[in-house]
């Protein structure tokens, strides 16, 4: 489980997973991201696989819910990052309430 759940850390996990899903070199993906205004369009199926990787890496259980799985939510690095950050924030609040 990661200790620092800030936006850059989550974004980094997403990009690493994208490299794995595409069997692509990190440098190539970084070049593509840079060429697309610091974001990258991805296929919604790639997005689903990435979500599983990131959830596993975070170690916070099943963060995403059925309502998150709209195809348009899963089709860019920025939208995936936003999705995870929202759920992480919600869980943090829920966790504090429970405590």
């Amino acid at each position: 489980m990661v200790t620092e759940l800030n936006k850059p850390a989550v974004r980094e996990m997403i990009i690493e997973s994208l490299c794995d899903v595409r069997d692509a070199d990190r440098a190539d993906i970084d070049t593509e991201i840079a060429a697309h205004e610091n974001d990258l369009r991805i296929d919604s199926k790639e997005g689903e696989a990435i979500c599983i990787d990131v959830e596993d890496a975070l170690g916070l259980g099943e963060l995403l819910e059925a309502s998150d799985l709209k195809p348009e939510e899963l089709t860019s690095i920025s939208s995936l990052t936003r999705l995870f950050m929202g759920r992480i924030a919600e869980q943090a609040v829920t966790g504090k309430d429970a405590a």
Partner: protein
Amino acid sequence: MHAITNENLSLAWNEALQHLIENDGKCVHLAVAITRPLDPEVDAVRNTLDQFIAERRGADGKQWPISTVANTMFPGAFYRPSRESPRERLYELHAKAQRMQQRMADPESYFNRLVAYPGADGKPFNQLEYIVQRLIKQRQPRKGGRGGPLSSAYELGLSVPEGGDLRVQAPGQDRNIMSFPCLSQISFTLEGEKLNLAALYRNQYFISRAYGNYVGLARIGNFIASEVGVQLGEILCLATHADAEFSGLTKGRVEQLAHSLRAALTPVEEVSA
């Protein structure tokens, strides 16, 4: 019965839609043959349809982009023939994505039926892998050097998926006639070095599904042909009942879509003349 043949996937779909609209939005036994299914799509057709769908994508989320419909049949992004062990990687990545799909109210997809058909013993059966292995084996010279591959060995019975077809409908499990799956079966016929594909739909929604279905079928055909080492030939899609969705989208809107498609396909010189 009505049959349409066109080289291009986009144009075949458009022709079928225009026929449906001229016939009150419905057709029994609509057969659409696409003779060059891997040729580039016509952007004007795809973009017009995708925009129409996006404008009507309501809270129920039942209208999906073409890419999503195609992905339910074959997740194209997971298959890269040039990578090492492309089939294994495809199945592996699908299994990962399927873990996310399991959170949906209805987690089943066509592709999952192709790679994890619910077997009688409860174990999932990978029909795609079975078909690929079977075709590879069948293409090898027969004993004694007699004859070549069996062209119609992939047209077998309906009762079990272990034949030569890809089966989607699962008897005893798919009991609701109004829901999944509308695609019943996919058959393959080897003709020399060409693999032809035929799909049977018991019902096909022409606005919200058919175009994505064609894209998905082309991907399935391309996958099997690539893995077996042959070319993809023709795709035949037979809808025993085709529906232009007048009841859900209204006849006026569907006619407007058809008009937009005709306009998008009209050469510029004709418009200006």
